[in-house]
């Protein structure tokens, strides 16, 4: 009983700590079958024992749990790979658990065995509180053996998924030079203006172009367009994109008032489920200090009319 944990107010009974322990651990004989398994494990091999029925029991016992018959003397190397037959995900490990971060317990049927083994399953250091999506019954796994083995079931530190994927770093760097029209377009956005081009056919293109894409003829004039328009179509995206703040996000085509073509833009400040074709939108500009010549200065388009997203 540790004095610091005692309490003794008049209306409360005493309480204190109490520990039951076998200092140094409790010594147990292994017998020939479990002893063989642990000895092989110390040498880095996993073995099962063949029962009279022909089944290979892993971990081995001296008798077949199904009928109590003594097992044969035949030891069979199994695994090291195996298949998860059931699992549980532990988000907050207990002190006695082998990990301090989220991990799984699993029953694992090692290749060549007929009974599964209980062990811990490590899904990696990035594991969060929710079960990882790849953790499924049927997952193929392999043991991670400790370097210093003593002949204990914990000589297997844990199991890990078989390698079925790699992550390849992929990156290329370029220098992009904008043409004259795009340069003027981005420069104008610094001042909160949207420039388009009128073709000789009267069609208004936005962003500003050098030539009419239908026949290659030069534009007849620059046109300044308002920052309001109509959403003509949209898509809800569930794949993260560095340009969008979070998933899901909405991208859409905005037909600016007075334009004849649509501008591809992010749609913001509205629940994706409330976005609809025909919605009036207006540009939300970045604050002047955040604007840059090298990228659009419109953060996204937002519902134009008060209550637009509430309808």
């Amino acid at each position, binding site marked *: 009983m540790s004095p610091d944990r005692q309490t003794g107010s008049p209306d409360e009974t005493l309480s204190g700590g109490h520990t039951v322990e076998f200092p140094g651990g409790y010594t147990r004989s292994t017998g020939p079958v479990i002893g063989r398994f642990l000895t092989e494990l110390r040498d880095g091999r996993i073995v099962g024992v063949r029962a009279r029925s022909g089944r290979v029991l892993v971990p081995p016992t001296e008798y077949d749990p199904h009928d109590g018959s003594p097992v044969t003397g035949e030891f069979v190397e199994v695994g090291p790979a195996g298949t998860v037959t*059931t699992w549980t995900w532990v988000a907050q490990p207990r002190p006695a658990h082998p990990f301090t971060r989220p991990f799984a317990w699993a029953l694992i049927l090692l290749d060549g065995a007929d009974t599964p083994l209980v062990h811990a399953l490590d899904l990696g250091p990035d594991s969060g509180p929710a079960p990882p999506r790849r953790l499924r019954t049927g997952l193929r796994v392999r043991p991670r053996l400790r370097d210093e083995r003593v002949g204990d079931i914990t000589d297997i530190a844990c199991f890990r998924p078989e390698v079925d994927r790699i992550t390849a770093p992929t990156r290329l760097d370029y220098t992009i030079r904008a043409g004259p029209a795009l340069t003027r377009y981005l420069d104008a956005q610094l001042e909160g203006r949207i420039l388009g081009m009128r073709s000789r056919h009267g069609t208004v293109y936005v962003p500003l172009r050098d030539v009419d894409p239908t026949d290659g003829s030069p534009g007849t004039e620059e046109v300044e367009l308002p920052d309001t328009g109509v959403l003509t179509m949209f898509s809800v995206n569930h794949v993260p994109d560095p340009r969008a703040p979070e998933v899901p996000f909405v991208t859409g085509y905005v037909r600016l008032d007075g334009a004849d073509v649509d501008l591809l833009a992010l749609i913001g400040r509205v629940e994706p489920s409330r976005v609809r074709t025909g919605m009036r939108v207006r540009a939300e500009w970045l604050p002047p200090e955040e604007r840059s010549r090298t990228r659009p200065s419109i953060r996204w388009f937002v519902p134009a009319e008060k209550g637009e997203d509430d309808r």
Partner: protein
Amino acid sequence: MSTPGTPPPTAVPPFPRDRREGDVAVVAFSQTRHMAADSGAPEARLVHTVVSDVLQRAGIDRGDIGFTVSGSLDYLAGTPFTFVGALDAVGAWPPISESHVEMDAAWALYEAWLRLRHGDIDTALVYGFGKATQGDLPDILTLQLDPYYLAPLGIDDISLAALQARALLDAERVTEADLAAVVDRSYAAARANPYSAQAGFTPDTLLTSEYVAHPLRPGDIARPCDGAAAVLLATGDTARRIAEAQGTRPAWIRGLEQRVDAHGPGARDLTRCDAAERAAVAAGVGAAPVQVAEVHARYSHQEPLLRGALGLDDGVEVNPSGGPLGADPVMATGLVRVGEVARRIAAGAAERGVAHAAQGPCLQHNLVTVLEG
């Protein structure tokens, strides 16, 4: 479907039906108001409360008891021979005929039933008790696991149960919605049961609280309690006399069987409870309609699993007390199942009922009692 190598279940009559003088009945039952926090009451006081209560209900004295047997677990208190200290509550001088099992007290009831069938005594007192809040129950239960292959891993009872729950979900034997329905109904029943612990969960939070061991959330897991329960058994005319004096009827034990499965969860099909199935067949559960059952399901998924294994059809009311999810006075929980069924039969609320007790990881060891009015 029988597992390869397992002998098929056979119907064995529990005992000759014509030996009415050997019939044993539950004639009184008492339980504490189980507490999810330590009230400071020592074990002997918990036992004293329930033993005094059954004796008073039955109208007999301590000296009239032919045999006394209890069930408890020293590891709950972390002290040896806890059950000897609890004998203070029974009154063991002059010496009495007494026994103890280091098991749930439902197994003490089994021993008492065997003892009564010797025919030389006509009453037996059975009690179970435990203060499960003093230690960390999952850690304590880890020490009952295979010391070579399971205990060194540090795996706990909740994680093992979660492996079983996942196996049932994968086999589409249950859905997460089924588990939530069990939890919802158990807590609703527990709140109406004055002996059940106020577990502090409301149905709204059961589906949203964090998983303890996926797919089990806190509400899916029995809350360990401090508590005790006592049952008085009597034979033949003594049983009828004691019941009559209380204005009730005896709840006759018509079947009492136990079966045990292999210990290792890998050595079994976790989507079945073979031992419960075989015990139920042997105890004769299916011989006549059953109205009520209390099952020792310490995890939500075990209730539908046991309903199937025991052969209880959809019409059977299961765990009207709220079951172990409502209160788990460890080492008395199984005996409480017997008492809850018996008191309904004694009061005439049911004609035939089944009580189930279990221990060991993932329902390894199962005891089935069939009670009739």
